[in-house]
C-alpha cells in the first residue's frame, strides 16, 4: 500500500511527439484514481510510466515515497492488468496467477494460499486448472485481476481492462472491480476512455486531454463544477449543451441572452461571480437533464425558452429531444409523458441554478 506521486511528468516520443506534457498528480494510499480522456490523450503513456514500461522523459515518479524513475518494473512492486488480459497462454489459470510469486521465490505453501484466496475473492476456483484458451472474456478478465491480487503489490494499474467485454459484462465487471478494491484496498490507478466507468469507479477522477490534466476531483465535483469547457463536455451523458450567449445587466439583475434573443435570468447566487464578465460574448452551458419540460419538480430559478425538436428519442424512462439553435446542437431530457413532436415548438425550462458560463477565449468555466 502506498501513495503515488507524479511530479512534472513529461513523455516525448521520438519525432517530438509530446504525449504527456508535464503533469502533477498526488494519489493517496488506498485511493482509487481513474485517468479518463479521449483516445490518444496520454492516459496509457502515463500509466506505463508509473509501471516502468515507458521511460520518463522528464520529471519524477515516486511510489510509497521513493523515487522510482530508474527502477525496473519488477522492483516497483506494482501489478498491471492489460486490455487484452495478457495471460500466459501455455499456463493454467493457477500457474498464471502463481508465476509472479514463483519468480520471486515464494514458498510453495504461501503461493498456494494466496492463489486460492484470490480465486475465492474472484469466484474462479473451479477454473484453476484450465488454460486461458478455455475461458470466456469475463473469466480471463478475472484471472488477470487474480494475477495482480496474489502479488499483493503497492499499486494496481489497470489499462482499459473492460474495453474488450460486451456491454452487459462490462457493467458486471465494473461492479466486481469496485468490490475487489473495497476488499483489498490497494492503491489503484485505472485508465479508461469511458466517462461512465470513471464516474462509477473513482474516488477521484483525473480528466486528461492532449497530454495535460484538465481537472482532478471526485466524480460529483467534476459533474457539478467542471473547471473547463472540455471537462464540462466530457463528463456526463448526453453531453452538456453549449450555446453562444451574451451576459447582460438590466436594472441590477444579470441575464444570459441567447443569439436568438431569448433572455434567461441568472440566479442571484451567481451574480457576484459573473458580474465582472458583463457585456462579454460567452458560452452558456447547461446539461440536458437541466433542460426539461414543465413537469419538473424543481420550482426555483427556472427560465422558459422555446425550441423546435428535430429528432425525438423515446428511451422508456425518459425521452431525449434534439434541437438545433444558432448552429449549436442541443439536447433536452423530457418526461416520457410529454407530448413532443418533431417540428412543433416546445416550451422548455432551463434550471438556471445548474447553469455554466464559459469564456470562449480560454475555455475556462467562470
Amino acid at each position, binding site marked *: 500500500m502506498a501513495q503515488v506521486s507524479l511530479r512534472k511528468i513529461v513523455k516525448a516520443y521520438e519525432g517530438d511527439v509530446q504525449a504527456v506534457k508535464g503533469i502533477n498528480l498526488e494519489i493517496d494510499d488506498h485511493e482509487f484514481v481513474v485517468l479518463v480522456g479521449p483516445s490518444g490523450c496520454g492516459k496509457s503513456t502515463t500509466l506505463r510510466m508509473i*509501471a516502468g514500461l515507458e521511460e520518463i522523459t522528464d520529471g519524477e515518479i515516486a511510489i510509497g515515497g521513493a523515487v522510482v524513475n530508474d527502477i525496473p*518494473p519488477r522492483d516497483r512492486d*506494482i501489478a498491471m492488468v492489460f486490455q487484452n488480459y495478457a495471460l500466459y497462454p501455455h499456463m493454467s489459470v493457477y500457474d498464471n496467477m502463481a508465476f509472479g510469486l514463483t519468480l520471486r521465490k515464494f514458498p510453495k505453501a504461501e503461493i498456494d494460499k494466496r492463489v486460492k484466496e484470490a480465486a475465492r475473492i474472484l469466484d474462479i476456483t473451479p477454473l484453476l486448472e484450465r488454460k486461458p484458451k478455455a475461458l470466456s472474456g469475463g473469466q480471463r478478465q478475472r484471472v488477470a485481476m487474480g494475477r495482480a491480487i496474489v502479488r499483493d503489490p503497492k499499486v494496481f494499474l489497470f489499462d482499459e481492462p473492460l474495453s474488450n467485454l460486451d456491454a452487459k459484462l462490462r457493467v458486471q465487471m465494473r461492479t466486481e472491480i469496485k468490490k475487489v478494491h473495497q476488499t483489498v484496498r490497494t492503491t489503484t490507478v485505472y485508465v479508461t476512455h469511458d466517462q461512465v466507468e470513471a464516474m462509477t469507479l473513482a474516488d477521484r477522477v483525473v480528466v486528461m486531454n492532449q497530454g495535460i490534466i484538465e481537472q482532478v476531483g471526485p466524480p460529483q465535483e467534476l459533474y457539478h463544477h467542471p473547471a473547463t469547457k472540455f471537462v464540462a463536455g466530457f463528463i456526463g451523458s448526453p453531453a452538456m449543451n453549449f450555446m453562444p450567449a451574451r451576459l447582460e445587466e438590466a436594472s441590477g439583475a444579470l441575464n444570459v441572452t441567447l443569439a436568438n434573443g431569448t433572455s434567461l435570468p441568472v440566479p442571484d447566487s451567481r451574480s457576484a461571480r459573473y458580474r465582472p464578465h458583463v457585456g462579454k460574448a460567452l458560452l452558456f452551458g447547461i446539461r440536458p437533464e437541466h433542460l426539461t419540460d414543465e413537469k419538473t419538480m424543481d420550482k426555483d430559478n427556472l427560465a422558459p425558452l422555446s425550441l423546435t425538436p428535430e429528432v425525438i428519442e423515446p428511451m422508456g424512462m425518459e425521452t431525449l429531444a434534439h434541437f438545433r439553435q444558432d448552429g449549436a446542437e442541443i439536447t433536452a431530457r423530457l418526461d416520457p409523458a410529454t407530448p413532443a413532436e418533431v417540428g412543433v415548438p416546445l416550451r422548455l425550462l432551463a434550471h438556471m441554478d445548474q447553469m455554466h458560463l464559459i469564456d470562449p477565449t480560454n475555455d475556462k468555466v467562470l
Partner: protein
Amino acid sequence: MSATAAGRDIPGIYHKAGSLRSERRWAMWTAYVSLIIAAIIFLAPPFYMLVTSFKTNAEIADYSLNPWLIRSPTFEHYAAILSNPIFIRFFINSCIVTACVVVLTMVISVLAAFALARMRFWGSQVLATGVFLTYLVPDTLLFIPLYQIVGGLGLLNSVWGLVLVYPTLTVPFCTWIMIGYFASIPKELDEAALIDGANWMQMLLKIFVPVAMPGIIAATIFAFTVSWAAFVYPTAFVTTAEQMPLTIGVVSQLVRGDTFAWGQIMAGALMAALPPVIIYAFLMDYYIAGLTAGATKG
C-alpha cells in the same frame, strides 16, 4: 403437424444446399486430381528406389524386363550394407553432425530471433533483413570461400568442419522463422512477465519458448532435414571415408569408377532417408502449425 410443416420447407432448403454441395464437390475433385498427380510425381522416384533395392543385380541389369516389377525379391543389398562397418560409421557421423548442428542452430537462432524481435536496438531492423538475405546465397557459391576458412582451421576431412559450416545453411532460415513467430506474440505478454518479475532470460525460457513451441519444432525439423541431407559441403570438405556422412558415403563407397552398385545404392539411400521420414511423421502436426502460425492469430 410439425412433420407436414417441415415437409413443405424441405425442398427449398434442399435446392440451396444442393447447389452449394455441387460447387463443393467440384472443388474437391480438383483438389484430389491435382494432389494425386503431385503425389505420383513425387513418389515415383522413391518407389522406383524401393523396387530396385529388392532386385538381384542380374535383374537390375536385364533391360528386357519391366523395371517396375520384382521377379525374385532379395534382401541381399540391405544385408550387405548393414553388415559393412563403414556404413555404420557413416550413419554415426551423420547422427553426430546433425545432432550438433540442430542444437547449435536452435540455440543461435532462438537467441538471435528474440533479440531481433524484441530488443529494439540501433540497426535491429536492418540486421533482421540481412539475416534473411544471407539465406538467399546458394551453398554452391559459398563452399569456395568456406573451403578456405575450414581449411585454415584445419578442419577439412572432419565431421567438426561440417558442424561448423552447416549452420550457415540453417541459422538464417531458422532465425527468420523464429523472428516471425516471436513477433506474433503480443507485446503485453512480455510486459506482464516483466512486471511479474522476469528477467530477459526467464522471459525467453518461460514465456517465449513455450508459446512459440510450434515454431521451434518447425525450425528444428528444418535444421534436421538440411543437415541430414546436406550434399555439397560434405562432398567438398570430406574425402576420407571415416569422416563421411551417409549422403556422400553411400555414393562414394558404392560407385567404383564406372561401376554402380545400384541395388546397394538404392538400399543405402532409402535407409538414409528413413530418419527424416520418421521425424516428419511424428512432428507433422506441429510443423504445419508452425508454418501457418502467422496466418491466423493464435
